[in-house]
């Protein structure tokens, strides 16, 4: 298996544009954690594009209710770690049949999602926490390439520089996290429910922590929502010792997260904050890009929190009742 070099991603987009100079829509399609890992790229593109239209879909919705605008002017980026997710493979095939330009992002060369992909991007995974973020980083870079080549992106060079630096930043950041992750694990091990919340590009990191790490891998019920919507419903669940985990962005939506934090503190919730600001992204990446790197620094740290709660609860992250065991 050969990991695709980040410097080669621009060629993929250039080749697509040689065939089709008019790219008007970009779709991000996946399931579960891979869909969540597509989100920062989607969020970046939606935030910065002036013309390109973009949306993100869970694979089966994309297959069964395909948007009318999927056509030869579309790029469809699909993502699956093992590459065998049947819904995502079907989505790739369907997109290709509609004439769209398909890019499969996977860890597994030759896997099902690559079959009908015009281009395959192989990401790193096993060896480090930064390797686990290679998926999210590559998708973000693909989004930046698309934007830069179609509309020009004034922070393009800064984006490439930031992506270069971020791997070592992640591996440094995770070194100091274990004690606080252990404290979280002790404090939350018996929680009947865990609320996980964030905003901006990190919204789906919260979703993935809630849905995959807590519900799937720990069998702990978990509720997740955007800190912006928190004050319009979910905050009525706040009470002394209610267990919250807040992923605090350093970027522009920090105000939303800070407002939620203040409220949770005021009513004595059991609150743990993973704050991107502790890792001083602003000193490392261009200030206009901090928003998009927030999820990339928060996600590996959150993973260590999950690893520690798995140890304390004696419930390995690999334990399943249904997944991979049953037909469904």
């Amino acid at each position, binding site marked *: 298996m050969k990991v695709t070099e980040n410097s080669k991603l621009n060629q993929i987009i250039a080749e697509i544009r040689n065939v089709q100079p008019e790219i008007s829509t970009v779709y991000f399609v996946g*399931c579960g954690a891979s869909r969540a890992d597509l989100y920062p790229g989607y969020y970046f593109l939606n935030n910065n594009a002036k013309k390109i239209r973009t949306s993100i879909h869970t694979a089966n919705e994309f297959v069964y209710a395909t*948007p009318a605008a999927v056509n030869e002017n579309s790029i469809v980026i699909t993502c699956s770690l093992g590459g065998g997710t049947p819904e995502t493979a079907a989505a790739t095939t369907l997109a290709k049949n509609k004439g769209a330009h398909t890019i499969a992002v996977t860890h597994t060369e030759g896997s099902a999602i690559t079959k009908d992909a015009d281009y395959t991007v192989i990401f790193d995974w096993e060896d480090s926490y930064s390797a686990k973020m290679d998926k999210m980083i590559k998708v973000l870079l693909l989004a930046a390439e698309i934007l830069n080549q179609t509309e020009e992106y004034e922070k393009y060079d800064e984006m490439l520089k930031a992506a270069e630096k971020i791997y070592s930043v992640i591996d440094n950041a995770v070194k100091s996290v274990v004690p606080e992750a252990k404290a979280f694990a002790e404090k939350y091990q018996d929680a009947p429910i865990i609320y996980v919340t964030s905003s901006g590009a990190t919204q789906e990191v919260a979703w993935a922590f809630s*849905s995959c790490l807590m519900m799937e891998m720990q069998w702990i019920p978990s509720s997740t929502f955007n800190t*912006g919507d928190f004050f319009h419903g979910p905050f*009525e*669940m706040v009470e002394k010792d209610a267990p919250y985990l807040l992923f605090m962005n350093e970027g522009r939506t920090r105000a939303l997260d800070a407002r939620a934090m203040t409220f949770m503190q005021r009513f004595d919730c059991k609150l743990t904050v993973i704050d991107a600001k502790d890792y001083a992204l602003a000193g490392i990446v261009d200030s206009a890009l901090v*928003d998009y790197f927030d999820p990339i620094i928060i996600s590996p740290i959150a993973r260590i929190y999950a690893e520690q709660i798995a140890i304390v609860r004696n419930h390995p992250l690999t334990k399943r009742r249904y997944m991979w065991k049953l037909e*469904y």
Partner: protein
Amino acid sequence: MLEEILSKREIKNVVWVAAGGSNGGNYPGHYFLDHEAKKLQSQMYTSNEFVYATPKYVNKNTLAIIVSMRGTPETCQAAKIAKEKGAVTMALYVDESELTEICDYKIAYESIMFDESDQSKTNAAVGLRLAMEILKETEGFAYYKEAVHAFEILDKIYNKAKKYCLTLAKDWAELNKSEKVISVLASGPSYAAGYIFSICNIMEMLQIVSPVINCCEFFHGPFEILDENTSVFLLISEGRTRPLDERALDFLKKHGGKKVYTLDARDLGILSFDEHIREYFNHLLFAPILNNVYMKDLSVTTGVDYTTRKYMWKEKY
């Protein structure tokens, strides 16, 4: 109103902005455009995301549809920003507020909460109607007539559906009266009906924990929490995504217990609408039925008064 707007400028994108339940209420209109429009872009935002991370594309070619019953502060702020960026701003509202002062246009809606409301005039219905009108005026919409008819009969269908659910909802509420966690499953055009039921009805009004799960994503994580005691409320939509909800149902039947509950849009009368457009009307039946029947019955059996709040409207936040 739309004709006037479109005669003055080209609309290339629609942004839907609101907070909480109103944000969820924007989903049917957004979902319709996201799926049917060939060119027009549609995006929805919770108000403060729009305020703090305003997308760069918002300009004079943008129609901003901004929704709040009484003028939620961050929603008013979002309207100001949309206007500053040159967008045409349209307020959907119940009570006049700063929001209706800021916006260029305003359309009053009726709250889904009240029995006397006409369900074809709620925020979600007005939003969907607007989305359909915009598409018709810009790119064309082949089933416009069928859609108009659907709006005409919607309130009647809703009232029948309400009667149909009366006993069913009481049984569900009885079974769930001591429940600590109620998970809501939905997908496709009904996802936001599930979201509103979860965050506004169950969590905000009744203070019961309620994760909301997309039926497709259920199989990529959340299904591991399921055992024979789990309380699950599954919405089964009519339309192209129905097999996705049925897949979840099959699994729930096999591995869940007696607290697996399903509400099927077919039983609510969705088949009365034309087949080409009916999937876009799922939300308009589900959301008011969940709020006005299921939530209220659960309020009775749990003894939690759904009109009181601990924080909302009381605390500063």
